[in-house]
């Protein structure tokens, strides 16, 4: 048999029907649902008298609209309607739901892995672009629109063209203070916000192998910011150890059998990718975005660039508009950019290890005057664990607000927003104009970098803090 990439292996395993001149009809193993992109899909089913084909392969939660303080008091009537609609739809169609009362509620891309729903080799979809997160387990996971949500609810399949494959090989070793977030920001900074369009990325190399599951999720999460259809990492012992004993993972003998099968999920020797790119992990510094796309970033020891440094007219115009929006002057040191808000959360960086990393920086210190800092755990389980470990108290003592779980300030659909003209150090994934609030100025960073910015009131090179800690 011809050698295959892991991407092709998973794909071929899920083709229900194939015919020349058509996309493949692909089977979907897990469909995650949330309140914002599903109401129109359920309504479509209702209008046509259709059922959900496999409620047992579907799982819903509420995350985008959820208030993170007084979560049961939803003052926004339209938001409340959307959550009521999800409850009603799940009841009517028999779909399991982790609602606001559930200890399992959280950001859909945090709870899927946490509950063991996410497993190697699965095809996973959700009406959310950050579904790529689940690729960290060696699953083929991608975001879809509402019409496709309806299609999957009705048929458990999607018509999809076989994607192109790309290897993203990250070699070397990361310096202390450099995180998974910096790796993905650096990759996007180097190759651009659309190098992945039409591709599924497989992340490989020494740097990737040494990452924990949660760090791998951060990398795969932002594959979509490179335009990729999905990003994944072949499963290994780190993956299997994470999944053992998770609620929906196989148990006992069945788990051992599953592991044997999952071990086959790797790219064969001699398999050919459509494209291969390289990144030297040793060269990556803590990274901060200065513009309005995730590619507009600089190492922390760098400066805000000048539009003239860019090659094309389109780029120069985009940079000019971005700097105007961000209120930044070319040549400004990244460490001189003041910060008024700090957001630690989102499906990119709100897991327990992210909070631990941030808490290490915060411990025994105080949030700088004039800075409002929020920690929004990715799930109620993460919240509980952080409270048990004392991390929550570390944040509270330092002057951070400690919240309930949800998407929160990543996109500000709930009341958590950044006012116009103010700068926010955010561990989220998008620094688009208006993303965190109209006129809000977002800088994407790692949890440690966000925590340091909260303490100092401006960006700081966390590598210097780690050096101090070692001394």
């Amino acid at each position, binding site marked *: 048999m011809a050698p295959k990439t892991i991407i092709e292996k998973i794909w071929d395993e899920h083709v229900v029907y194939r015919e020349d001149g058509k996309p493949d009809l692909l089977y979907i193993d897990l469909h995650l649902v949330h309140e914002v992109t599903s109401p129109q899909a359920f309504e479509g089913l209702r209008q046509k008298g259709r059922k959900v084909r496999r409620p047992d392969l579907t799982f819903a939660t509420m995350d985008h609209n959820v208030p993170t303080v007084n979560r049961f008091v939803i003052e926004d009537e339209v938001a409340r309607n959307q959550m009521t609609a999800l409850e009603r739809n799940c009841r009517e169609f028999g779909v399991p739901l982790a609602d606001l009362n559930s200890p399992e509620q959280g950001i859909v891309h945090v709870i899927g892995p946490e509950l063991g729903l996410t497993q190697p080799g699965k095809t996973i979809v959700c009406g959310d*672009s950050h579904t790529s997160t689940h690729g960290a387990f060696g699953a083929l996971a991608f975001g879809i629109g509402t019409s496709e949500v309806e299609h999957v609810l009705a*048929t458990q399949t999607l018509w999809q063209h076989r994607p192109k494959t790309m290897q993203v090989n990250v070699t070397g070793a990361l310096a202390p203070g450099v995180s998974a977030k910096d790796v993905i920001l650096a990759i996007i900074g180097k190759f651009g916000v659309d190098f992945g369009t039409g591709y599924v990325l497989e992340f490989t190399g020494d740097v990737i192998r040494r990452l924990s599951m949660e760090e791998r999720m951060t990398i795969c999460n932002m594959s979509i910011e490179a335009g990729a259809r999905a990003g994944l990492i072949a499963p290994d012992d780190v993956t299997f150890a994470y999944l053992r004993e998770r609620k929906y993972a196989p148990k006992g003998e069945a788990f051992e059998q599953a592991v044997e099968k999952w071990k086959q999920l790797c790219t064969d020797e001699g398999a050919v990718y459509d494209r291969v790119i390289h990144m030297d992990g040793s060269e990556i510094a803590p990274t901060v975005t200065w513009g309005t796309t995730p590619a507009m970033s600089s190492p922390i020891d760098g400066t805000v660039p000048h539009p003239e440094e860019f090659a094309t007219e389109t780029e120069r115009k985009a940079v000019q508009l971005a700097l105007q929006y961000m209120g930044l002057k070319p040549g400004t040191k990244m460490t001189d950019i003041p910060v008024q808000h700090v957001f630690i959360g989102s499906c990119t960086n709100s897991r327990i290890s992210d909070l631990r990393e941030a808490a290490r920086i915060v411990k025994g210190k105080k949030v700088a005057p004039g800075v409002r800092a929020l920690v929004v755990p990715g799930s109620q389980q993460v919240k509980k664990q952080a409270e048990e470990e004392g991390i929550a108290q570390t944040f509270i003592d330092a002057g951070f607000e400690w919240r309930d779980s949800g998407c929160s300030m990543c996109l500000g659909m709930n009341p958590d927003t950044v006012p116009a003209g103010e700068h926010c150090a955010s561990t989220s994934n998008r620094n688009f104009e208006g993303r965190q609030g109209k006129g809000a100025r977002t800088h994407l960073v790692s949890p440690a970098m966000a925590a340091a910015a909260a303490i100092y009131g401006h960006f700081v090179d966390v590598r210097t803090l780690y050096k101090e800690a070692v001394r």
Partner: protein
Amino acid sequence: MEPFIIHKGKVAGLDRANVDTDQIIPKQFLKRIERTGFGQFLFYDWRYLPDGAPNPHFELNRPENEGATILVANENFGCGSSREHAPWALADYGFRAVIAPSFADIFYNNCLKNSLLPIKLPKEDVVYLLKKAERPDYELTISLEQQVVFDDEGFTSTFDIDPYRKQLLLKGWDEIDLTFVYEPYIIAYEKARS
């Protein structure tokens, strides 16, 4: 779905790259549970000033772009969030087609599900069309059957589209109905795996 066969209409230019779906339809308008009525919120933060008055500097507010049904933009149009509210808003506003050198994958797929035709043209054609779109009377014709875009002044350019998606658009078929034809294969697949 409304069929798309041939369309002639006025062209509006939006000479920006990486226009993300957060700009096309900002998050505060995603809370509705209907598919309709999003046009009024299209490009909201660019289109309106803080006091709610139309922003005269925004491309679509220029008098020459009034009544446009074809939008021409730059690279990586529709990147970011998977929100189908973006094509819903563009279609509800009156657009039937978007032309760009490249599109983000999810947005491109979402357009096809809503009879909003996304057309990839070479960069030099897009540059030409953006220039032409500055004129108030400039019109293009799009034939999906022929896979061609042309004007009355000699410009013509062909485009690619997946033959399966093309058929669905030409016929205006409901894709789910069509997939049910393949249900025996789905059942067989589920049996084989259980």
